[in-house]
């Protein structure tokens, strides 16, 4: 601790340079934090969201092609299946085109058996069941639009034309920062009232809850075998695989984010490395004097390295805190990035990254300072 004054005094030697270096770290780590949140939002954490005991069944032709409602009973007969529910993608906006909402027409009878982690107060659920035009929304969507239970919500259909009126009967909560809390549920029966005959009695996809997660692959195959060679063949996957395939639709987001992050940090490394090298070079004589009065080579190396680490820690820490604040207050794409959360794990990773960059950028100048010969350094003055 008695040397900390020495380190901090040196940091403030050139205030503008310190500010710019801190700024470089701050901006880079802010970007890191923001990209980490975007990556997670695009499904980087699908393993957390997906239930190990769920299988998703779509039409073999793809997401657009519907499946018969009658498949539900046949699926229930497959050994190992506990419950089956279905959904239909609705696609609608609230008041304005940019206010996209993730609406699903759901199977009211089985929704809660298959998705028990999505909690709805019992009285609200009861009201929803009894209300043909009822809706349940995730807490984040309710907060986003300022909706409360009892509100009448007109939704303009983009797939199913016209304005659809809903009564908000309840609000669901998932596990914080893990589950999608932006969905809008309404009764599949209500949808059926207004759709054309060509898609009546059809659903978008099934979600199957199974008794044993180890059977996910077997049951997926069994479901697809059940409907093989029919007009509506299926393709089933464990939910984690389904989500991973879903994420692939956005292209290789992870590679893109890692590439941007890599370039940013490499640039940061060059900038800070150069800054530290200049900082050491311009006080060669002072370091030589430290050695002359008895400071060891190792001390001088650690002294220079600690300056670099302190800059990294302060600058990077500020960037991470700023990223946390911004991502808490603002989601740039609320309709697309349902989970927009800077997790403590990601913050810790950011902190480790910033310390690593600080250490690497300070290492060469620190080694140079360590190897500095007092006689040579003083001769240069």
């Amino acid at each position, binding site marked *: 601790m*008695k*040397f900390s*004054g*020495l380190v901090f*005094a*040196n940091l*403030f*030697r050139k205030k503008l340079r310190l500010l710019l270096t801190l700024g470089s770290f701050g901006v880079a780590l802010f970007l890191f934090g923001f990209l980490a949140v975007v990556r997670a939002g695009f499904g980087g954490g699908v393993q957390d969201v997906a239930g190990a005991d769920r299988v998703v069944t779509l039409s073999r032709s793809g997401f657009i092609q519907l499946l018969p409602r009658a498949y539900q009973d046949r699926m229930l007969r497959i050994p190992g299946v506990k419950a089956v529910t279905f959904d239909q993608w609705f696609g609608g906006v609230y008041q304005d085109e940019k206010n996209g909402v993730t609406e699903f027409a759901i199977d009211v009878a089985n929704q809660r058996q298959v998705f028990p982690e999505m909690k709805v107060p019992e009285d609200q659920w009861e009201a929803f069941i009894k209300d043909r035009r009822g809706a349940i929304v995730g807490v984040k969507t309710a907060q986003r639009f300022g909706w409360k239970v009892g509100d009448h919500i007109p939704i303009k259909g983009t797939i199913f034309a016209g304005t659809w009126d809903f009564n908000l009967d309840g609000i669901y909560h998932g596990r914080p920062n893990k589950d999608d809390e932006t969905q809008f549920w309404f009764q599949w029966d209500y949808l059926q009232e207004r759709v054309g005959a060509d898609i009546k009695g059809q659903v978008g996809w099934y979600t199957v809850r199974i008794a044993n997660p180890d059977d996910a692959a077997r049951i997926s195959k069994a479901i697809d075998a059940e409907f093989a060679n029919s007009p509506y063949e299926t393709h089933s996957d464990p939910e984690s695989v389904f989500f991973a395939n879903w994420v692939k639709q956005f292209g290789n987001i992870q590679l893109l984010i890692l590439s941007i992050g890599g370039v940013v940090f490499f640039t940061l490394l060059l900038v800070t490395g150069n800054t530290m090298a200049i900082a050491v070079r311009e*006080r060669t*004589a*002072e370091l*030589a*004097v*430290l*050695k*002359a*009065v*008895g*400071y*060891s*080579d190792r001390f001088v190396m650690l002294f220079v390295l600690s300056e670099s680490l302190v800059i990294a820690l302060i600058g990077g820490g500020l960037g991470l805190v700023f990223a946390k604040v911004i991502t808490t207050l603002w989601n740039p794409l609320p309709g697309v990035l349902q989970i927009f959360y800077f997790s403590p794990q990601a913050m810790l990773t950011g902190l480790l990254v910033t310390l690593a960059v600080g250490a690497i950028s300070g290492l060469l100048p620190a080694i140079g300072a360590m190897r500095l010969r*007092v*006689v040579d350094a*003083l001769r240069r*003055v």
Partner: protein
Amino acid sequence: MVRVDAFGNSSSLIHVRGLDKKYYRGGEEIHVLQGLNLDVEKGEFVAFMGPSGSGKTTLLNLLGGLDVPSAGSITVAGDEITHMSSGKLTEWRARHVGFVFQMYNLIPVLTAFQNVELPLLLTKLSKAERRKHVETALGVVGLSDRIHHFPRQLSGGQEQRVTIARAIVSDPTFLLCDEPTGDLDRKSADEIMELILRLVKEYHKTVLMVTHDPVVAQRADITLHLEKGALVEAGELEIATAGGAA
């Protein structure tokens, strides 16, 4: 050139024998010091003079353990320093040597107090003890009222006083001064010389000083002249014998 007793023994504080220093520059060998012998007694004030390139600063660097000789030995207060490892030599410097440089070499972002405290941070002294030592050292050099000033707020002479305070704060065995007045006007130079003399007379410090200035050198107890890496002339040597006595 050496000062020894009739039996070739020496009880001196600094005992140098057969000191050689060679450099290689562009494949050419440069012999900076050649077979130099020297004894300095405790409490003596020795000045080294000589033209540029005569080896004065090299000798000072070797005596201060900042450089290692090509051959020969240096013994200070019984410690043979020429074969010490780099780490040991660093520790030895901290205990035994106080450096005063021509360009002061104070750390500009530290106050006079903090600059003087630097050598003490390596010791086990408590904060209060360090403060006491620093205040004493700054008092000796007459800068008690400039304790919280930064180097840029001090004159050249005052900066050099701070350097001297830093050199004496850990009570080293001897002081090495490399042209301590070289960057000062005559008045400031005189004040610094008065201070160094006071350290010798009142505090019985041993001082070895390199200078180009004969007026400054005159004030030392002994002036030794270096010419092409050898001591060629004695000022007030007690005994001068041939190299064989070394």
